[in-house]
């Protein structure tokens, strides 16, 4: 594969090499068909040279990295800039970033073959692509310097963005950018491996590189969707039906129209939109609407009823088979001891700090959208379908997202389609910013589905597991979406069983079944997807088996993970750093638990220490994590993601649940759906296993082990197993 192919991820592209390179001062923009630099300031700055879809160099030497992934806090701007800076031997202070426009030909996620951010793939899929792009830009600039200085390319050294030659000649990237772009193709020496050997890394894996988004996020200047303001823009708030699947029957907007600042009120498929000159007027107008809803086709069941259906489903065999090996029934019959355990999990909302929103400016010949876009390859055609435009007429500009945890990437593009429907309903008379309130966000669906699990697991006379029978029931996040055919095979949505169907432990007889329930509540991936529940079940049950066998939980796991070196290394690291002593009993009122789980090709082990408080509550004191995520690109971002994953998992485990009564969501704001708060946050320590393998995911893998390690810690303190999440108000007594 050529260098260009690697940069493009092998996507066919109808451009010659020269076309990619020759963008100097805007003069060559016409050669970049379909590529529009963003943001506009960069174009206006002038003299900016674009070397490939990912690298631009300004006359002052600033290197701008075009970031193809949404940064919702997980840090791909820092990570991708590190890859380019490493290959260009740049100084960290000269690095800038901007988000890529919607253009799947140039900016596809190579793990998806579509433009989007998710599955903890941002760095893994870009690892070779961005380094190649950086190496190519460096080669072109060195060639330009060599030509000017009349020296051999190989004699030029680049350090911290400064080019130098033993003759004493020195120069900056900015000085050579224009000349480099004018070179006839091909430039640079073609090499099999254009990027550096790991031994030569100066930035990748090194401590001390600060996040590239530190400054704008600590002075109030970072622009999120909520902060976008276009001339003539109206702010829209939408009255949604009180139950999923409800429709507008009729509405009375007489009072809403009286609200100062309200300009337009329109019906859309999603409800009734109130458009106003400012956000507060839009909210007030929306509150003054009187809408009569047609709920005849709406989901009207409650979550207790739904959970009962799931529990009934797992109480008997008959699900679609996700995995089967050996003779589970036979092994259960002949086993020394059988453990049967039932688990339940509620719906969970993502609840990002920035409630959902989207800006759209619809014109007859095109639409411009500005928002924290996470799944451009879905959003772009969806907006086209809603507005009657062609997909290529829909331009998407991405801005910082105030969290997401999966919520901004939706197979139905729900909130983006809603913004487009409003723009269409007003015939594009004004740019529109759709703003959801916290209540809209909490009640808006697209939850982590509820699930029930039943496991019957058995140990033999030696205490080791001989059989594992596992039935999962709940909703599929892909059923009914455009991605169903791709994601659901033989009745099994892999994301409902991942983490269980590929059980890491050496159990000779294994069967995992899935019953998928049809419910009219929209569901979605939620940070770590299926692993949010499967890890809890697997790691709780394996702990029970260890206890039944009279073995230490860490040693028991290690014995079953002999052919899993990454699990073994992560688990040993966490245990060692936590000071795990096999067989040690915690002092009264204290508990310690462990879990290890692989997700997104990363293995994370966690040791959790808890205190049972005087009033029977649970206080998490310390969490020690051992992580194998392949090559670490930025050690501090890796630590931050695991710290955040622990906090995200802990909030859900302690108290979060979305419940429905007669189809109506019972939670609305942070009082009834209360995220983890500072006083709940334990001390978290994160350690990584040294590795020279390709980088794997890190945004999500910190979440799954937390709940089971916590539950196992509670067991060690109280003798009580936690099989239903969240813990809620239940009180514990110490053993």
């Amino acid at each position, binding site marked *: 594969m050529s260098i260009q192919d690697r940069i493009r991820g092998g996507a066919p592209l109808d451009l010659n090499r020269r076309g990619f390179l020759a963008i100097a001062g805007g003069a060559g923009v016409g050669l970049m068909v379909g590529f529009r630099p963003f943001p506009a300031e960069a174009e206006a700055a002038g003299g900016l040279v674009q070397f490939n879809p990912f690298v631009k160099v300004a006359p002052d030497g600033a290197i701008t990295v075009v970031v193809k992934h949404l940064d*919702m*806090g*997980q*840090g791909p701007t820092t990570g991708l800039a590190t890859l380019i800076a490493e290959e260009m031997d740049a100084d960290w202070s000269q690095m800038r970033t901007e988000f890529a426009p919607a253009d799947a030909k140039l900016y596809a996620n190579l793990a998806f073959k579509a433009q989007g951010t998710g599955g903890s793939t941002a760095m893994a899929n870009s690892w070779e692509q961005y380094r190649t792009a950086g190496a190519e830009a460096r080669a072109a600039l060195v060639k330009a310097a060599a030509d000017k200085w009349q020296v051999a390319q190989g004699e030029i050294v680049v350090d911290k963005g400064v080019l130098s030659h033993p003759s004493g000649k020195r120069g900056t990237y900015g000085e050579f950018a224009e000349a480099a772009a004018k070179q006839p193709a091909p430039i640079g020496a073609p090499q099999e491996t254009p990027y550096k050997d790991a031994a030569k890394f100066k930035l990748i894996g090194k401590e001390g590189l*600060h*996040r590239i*988004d*530190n*400054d*704008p*996020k*600590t*002075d*109030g*200047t*970072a*622009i*999120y969707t*909520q*902060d976008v*303001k276009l001339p003539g823009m109206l*702010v829209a708030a939408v009255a949604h039906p009180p139950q999923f699947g409800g429709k507008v029957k009729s509405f009375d907007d007489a009072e809403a129209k009286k609200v*100062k600042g309200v300009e337009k009120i329109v019906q859309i498929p999603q409800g009734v939109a109130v458009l106003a000159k*400012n*956000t*507060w007027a839009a*909210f007030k107008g929306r509150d003054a609407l009187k809408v009569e809803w047609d709920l005849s086709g709406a989901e009207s069941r409650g979550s207790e009823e739904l959970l009962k259906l799931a529990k009934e489903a797992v109480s008997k065999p008959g699900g679609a088979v996700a995995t089967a090996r050996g003779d589970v029934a036979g092994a259960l019959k002949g086993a020394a001891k059988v453990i049967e355990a039932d688990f339940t999990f509620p719906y969970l909302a993502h*609840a*990002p*700090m*920035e*409630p959902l929103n989207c800006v759209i400016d619809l014109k007859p010949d095109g639409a411009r959208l500005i928002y924290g876009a996470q799944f451009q390859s879905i959003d772009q055609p969806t907006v086209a379908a809603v507005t009657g435009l062609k997909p290529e007429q829909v331009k998407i500009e991405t801005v*910082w*997202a*105030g*969290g*997401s*945890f999966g919520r901004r990437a939706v197979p139905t593009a729900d909130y983006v389609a809603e913004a487009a429907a409003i723009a269409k309903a007003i015939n594009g008379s004004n740019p529109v910013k759709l703003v959801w*309130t*916290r209540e809209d966000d909490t009640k808006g669906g697209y939850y982590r589905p509820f699930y029930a699990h039943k496991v019957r697991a058995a140990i033999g006379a030696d205490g080791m597991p001989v059989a594992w029978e596992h039935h999962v029931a709940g909703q599929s996040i892909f059923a009914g979406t455009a991605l169903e055919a791709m994601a659901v095979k033989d009745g099994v949505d892999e994301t409902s069983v991942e983490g269980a169907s590929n059980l890491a432990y050496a159990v000779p007889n294994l069967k995992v079944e899935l019953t998928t329930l049809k419910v009219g509540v929209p569901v979605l991936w939620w940070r770590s997807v299926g692993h949010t529940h499967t890890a809890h079940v697997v790691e709780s049950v394996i702990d029970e088996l260890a206890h039944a066998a009279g073995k230490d939980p860490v040693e028991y796991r290690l014995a079953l993970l002999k052919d899993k070196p990454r699990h073994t290394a992560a688990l040993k690291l966490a245990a060692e750093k936590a000071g795990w002593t096999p067989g040690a009993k915690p002092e009264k009122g204290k508990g310690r638990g462990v879990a290890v789980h692989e997700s997104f090709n990363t293995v994370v082990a966690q040791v959790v220490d808890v205190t049972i408080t005087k009033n029977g509550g649970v206080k998490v004191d310390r969490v020690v994590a051992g992580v194998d995520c392949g090559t670490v690109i930025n050690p501090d*971002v890796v630590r*931050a993601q695991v*710290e*955040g994953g*622990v*906090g*995200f998992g*802990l*909030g859900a485990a302690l108290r979060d649940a979305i419940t429905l009564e007669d189809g109506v969501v019972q939670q609305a*704001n*942070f*009082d009834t759906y209360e*995220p*983890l*708060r*500072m*006083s709940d*946050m334990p*001390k*978290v320590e994160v350690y990584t296993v040294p590795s020279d393998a390709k980088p794997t995911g890190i945004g999500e893998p910190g979440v799954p082990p937390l709940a089971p390690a916590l539950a196992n810690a509670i067991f060690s303190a109280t003798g009580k197993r936690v099989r239903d999440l969240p813990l809620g108000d239940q009180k514990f007594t110490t053993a």
Partner: protein
Amino acid sequence: MIKLKINGEERSVDVDADTPLLWVIRDEIGLTGTKFGCGQALCGACTVHMDGQPVRSCQTMAGDVGDAQIVTIEGLVGANATPEGKAVQAAWRALDVVQCGYCQSGQMMSAAALLTENKKPSDDDINAALNGNVCRCATYQRIRAAVHDAARRLEA
């Protein structure tokens, strides 16, 4: 018309007295560093200082501000930064506190207000002062460390 003193400047805005200060700051004055998170004083993303005290601007009505001096994140760390603002910002950057960043203006406003009152806060003091500021990225451990770091910077 309502007159407000924001970041040392006097501003007149044509809003009803019952308009939340948050929306005056964001939509009328155009300072967008103060964030909308919940609208019910449950998350602290909209925290500003009113005569030095941290308040939730989403539940503070424009008509109730009167002569009070309002300071937003732009005033806390801008050209006329307070010593606490400077120290908090430096600490936040040194410890790479931010992830998505959306709540951090509010976190920094609460932290700076705490440090004005309490030069050497304990972990418990920090938990108490910042428990109303939600961070869904759960950067809490770093926030706590950064408040201690800012206190040391102020002492130096």
